[in-house]
């Protein structure tokens, strides 16, 4: 029952976000583009850092075990 309520809650949130996005996309297309674009730029930038960690791990032969400081 709790999972179902969570599902309903998230569906309502998703619906509200979609409606707001549709309104914002209609009257403020560039604002919408800024919101989506900024999020995308930040996430791609963050993903590129994670990719660097993976590349360095691979450069060390794939056996490097990293601690929380990014060190083997």
């Amino acid at each position, binding site marked *: 029952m709790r999972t179902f309520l969570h599902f309903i809650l998230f569906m309502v949130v998703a619906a509200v976000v979609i409606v707001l996005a549709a309104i914002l996309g209609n*009257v*403020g*297309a*560039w*604002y919408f*583009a*800024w919101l989506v*674009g*900024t999020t*995308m*730029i*930040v*996430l*791609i*930038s*963050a993903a*590129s*850092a*994670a*990719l*660097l*960690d993976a*590349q*360095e791990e691979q*450069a*060390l*032969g794939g056996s*490097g075990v*990293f*601690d*929380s*400081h*990014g*060190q*083997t």
Partner: protein
Amino acid sequence: MINGTVVDLSRIQFAATALYHFLFVPLTLGLSFLLAAMETVYVTTGRSIYKDMAQFWGKLLMINFALGVATGLTMEFQFGTNWSFYSSFVGDIFGAPLAIEGLMAFFMESTFIGLMVFGWERLSKGQHLAVTWLVALGSNLSALWILVANGFMQDPVGAAFDPVTMRMQLTSFPKLIFSPDVQSKFVHTSIAGYVTAAIFVTGVSAFYMLRRRHMALAKRSFRMAALFGVLATMGVITLGDALGFVAASVQPTKLAAMEGLWKAEAAPMPFNLIAFPDQAKHENRFEVQLPDLLSLLVTHSLTGRVRGIDALEGQAERKIENGIPAVQALEALSRDPKDAAALAQFDAHRSDLGYGFLVQRYAPDLSKVTPAQVSEAARDSIPPVAAVFWSFRLMVAFGLLMLAFFGLAALYTLRNSVQEQTWLLKAALWMIPVPFLADEAGWLVAELGRQPWTVFGVLPTWMSASTHSVTYMAFSLIGFIALYSIFIVIEMYLMVRAIRVGPSEHGDPGVHPAQPRPVLVGRPVPAAAHGTRLED
């Protein structure tokens, strides 16, 4: 009549303070989101190197933020002190976004930046990340509101002049904040800040890599900033195109000045790559043109045409002639607000009221205005062409240079070999001033291109200033320039000192040239990993 020298000094003072202030703002706008990206990686991966990064770049953000606030405060007061007629004329519209900007900057942004700096040990990881995101959002929303106010000056929508109160009044808040000029200007400016921060971070990271210091932090910072920058630069260029498209319809004089376009030619029109505009003769010297490009850039069509300055001056003459009865009606209404004939005359000519004000500079008594004075005022309706033309080209050239730099930076960092490209690292250092110059050039295009208006087509600059003495303006200008130059020196001193000291790293001790090359247990350190995976 306000002294012309006072108006010029008021303009120089505002321009000087704004240009100084705009050296700080873009870095805050972009660096706050880069911090959010770094901290997001820290929270999702748990690796403390990303916490070190967020704390180090956060320290530089704080220095920049503090001086940005200090330089910005005076500008808001200048509207009242030096532009009192402007403030009373459009204060009903201008005041609201300016107040919201103040609330955003000093309540939301400043509160959360305090939590961000002092909350590392007091907040949970998730809470601190939320705070960092709110700092980024707050700083950019603060910029949004000042750009809403500026957007109204460029394209005054959502307001109307009330002949009874003798000032502009807000008619539609949604129209004001959703105007195409405001939207595209906000996104263009905000993302230009991302580019500025990305260049700054790549430059400082390159400094560390060239000296083999803090390699783990520098490589990750460079990687994140390069990807952040390449996407942001593409965004800035896209929005620059959108702004040009908007200017074609709402500010044709600015667009004509940007393009050095005196006479409209048949479509498709060529783009002046290089030219030396002569405003007195209405011609360009030493033109180098690219065929068809202007129509394509401005109208997104090969059949589109753009009006030239000659045609726009002719249009201004007609508007001035139509605006004169509106100003005369206002004079009658100021004597008797219930004068129905004057009100009817005003309503018939109200669309060109601003152009009536424009000619009053030459003919204070509009009943005696001559055709020569109308022509002189019409010539004044065109902004300083050479300054706008070259500022625009500098901005675009710097933008393309940064795109090329970020393209190479992204390529080498994705190959994980950027630390070996000494030439690129040195280039990154030299690139640090470029986005700041591009930002300043962009500001000049926007604001010089709006002349001779403070509110485009509504209120001329010559009417907007306060009635100070020349001496007062000259001394306050010298004071501002001296004070702000000291601020710049302080900023550079603090920044350079913080960069030389470097980050406080918990995981990476940094590798100095004097130190022996470290080895991992059982195997040599690969070049790519040098300095990043050291045995404790």
